[in-house]
């Protein structure tokens, strides 16, 4: 076990230790609220001819916070909910979102990116993957729609809009799920450094007092 990279060990730990009931409930409630808000409100407000889609952001950020397994499960559930509610072909959105949630979780488990722009990039990637993946599956299923400039434009505008709301959405998802997440030693260490708790300077000054 010592031969494996530390990130893999931590990722495995995260995946195995997670799926506590409270976290599942939080994810479920957040998913339902976001999906209904998306269908009932946000989809009704087009900007530049395209609506903001929060669902891929939700799935990606769930994976980024909770790991690949919960990300994949959340992706499948959210996708199924959307397909059912919008009377779409069942399985299309589920498949796309499952992969998005899984790979977002894997990103956290393998790289654990801490840059401030990580949610922005993950959100953009998730939005692009969702739109391209959905279009691809629809084309494979034989939807008679030509690949036009309009479609490409809509995809690009949609990705840009989703990217624009990625940071607020990340803050929302993080705020809702952070209470259900098990204590992560890396996070505790980062918080301690940030607040000065484990800073060598603070320690020395404390001793001096």
């Amino acid at each position, binding site marked *: *076990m010592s031969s*494996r990279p530390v990130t*893999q*060990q931590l990722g*495995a730990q995260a*995946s*195995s230790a997670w799926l506590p009931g409270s976290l599942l409930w939080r994810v479920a409630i957040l998913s339902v609220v976001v999906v*209904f*808000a998306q*269908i*009932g*409100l946000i989809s*009704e*407000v*087009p*900007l530049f001819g395209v609506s903001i889609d929060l669902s891929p952001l939700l799935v990606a950020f769930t994976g980024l916070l909770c790991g*690949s*397994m919960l990300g*994949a*499960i959340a*992706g*499948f559930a959210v*996708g*199924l909910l959307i*397909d*059912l*509610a919008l*009377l779409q*072909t*069942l*399985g*299309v959105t*589920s*498949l796309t979102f*499952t*992969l998005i949630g*899984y790979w977002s979780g894997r990103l956290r488990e393998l790289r654990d990116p801490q840059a401030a722009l990580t949610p922005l990039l993950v959100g953009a990637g998730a939005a692009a993957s969702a739109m391209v993946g959905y279009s691809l*599956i629809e084309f494979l*299923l034989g939807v008679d729609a030509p690949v036009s400039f309009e479609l490409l434009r809509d995809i690009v505008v949609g990705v840009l809009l989703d990217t624009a709301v990625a940071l607020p959405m990340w803050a929302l998802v993080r705020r809702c799920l952070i209470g259900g997440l098990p204590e992560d030693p890396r996070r505790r260490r980062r918080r301690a450094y940030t607040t000065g708790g484990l800073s060598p300077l603070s320690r020395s000054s404390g001793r001096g007092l």
Partner: protein
Amino acid sequence: MYDKTVRRRRAVLALLVALSLILLTAYFGEAQSGGLHSLQSGFLTVVSPIQDGANKALKPVRDLFGWFGDTLDAKSQNKELRKELNRAREQLTADQEGAHKYAELLKLDHLNSALSIADYHPVSATVVNQSPNIWYSTIIIDQGSSSGVRINDPVIDGEGLVGKVTRVASDGALVSLITDSEVEVKARISATGAIGMLQPQVGEPGRLVMQNRSSNAPVTRGDYVVTSGTVSGEGDSLYPPGIPIGLVTSENEQSPFKSVNVSPLADLHNLDTVEVLTSTSGSRPATLSTLSERLGPAPSTGSEGEGTGGQAASTEEAGGGGSTETG
């Protein structure tokens, strides 16, 4: 422990992907009354009240966002519509301008047909500048010597006589209107046949007075005054006979020559399109003009028009005018 976790994670992924593909295939393959479609309909039945409630609850928020969107749309639409309105206005202005020009050209055409103006080689010209003072005595037109316009050529519009060319450039000419103090026109009262000199009325811009009448026959208000088709001296313009000039407004009883006040027919304040009667060399009017120059001034013993008797006769022949001045 690690291997078990990895296996479980991969198994979950594989299961979910497989489930998605099974759902997709089954849904895509089954009929509208199939199980998955029914499940979807059932879900919608259950969820629709919630959706309705959410829709109603979120309506104000949606309306607010919609208001912002509509405002943005309205702004862009407003911009587009303004552009369209400007285009329509330009089009309308051009159309009105065209219609106005057409009406003027139609009048000119009627006049041309009635008076055989075509013999005088008319050149259509647009007024490019008008004297801004209240006397409105000169205008500038956009045709000049390159179009055959020469000094002393008569200028008419659809209503009648306007003036004569007094200066010529290659692409423009100055026209002195009949209200200009330097312009005199030999005219005839169409009802009585009396001939006289038409000049601007002193102190009343836009008014003409006919003096030195050949006959003191009474005139009636509203009688037409037309060109006589004769000249009174060297340098005078040979206006084709019968071109309307104005209407008699009153007769000055106190004047020894019983002068007549005349109001011009042409709206000299709003000239737009005019015609210059160029009567190019070799044409009948030009020949007449040359003849009148050669004959010189009229003998003092006869009436004013006697010197141009031959010309008058020819003019009468040419234009069918009513000149009766014969030598």
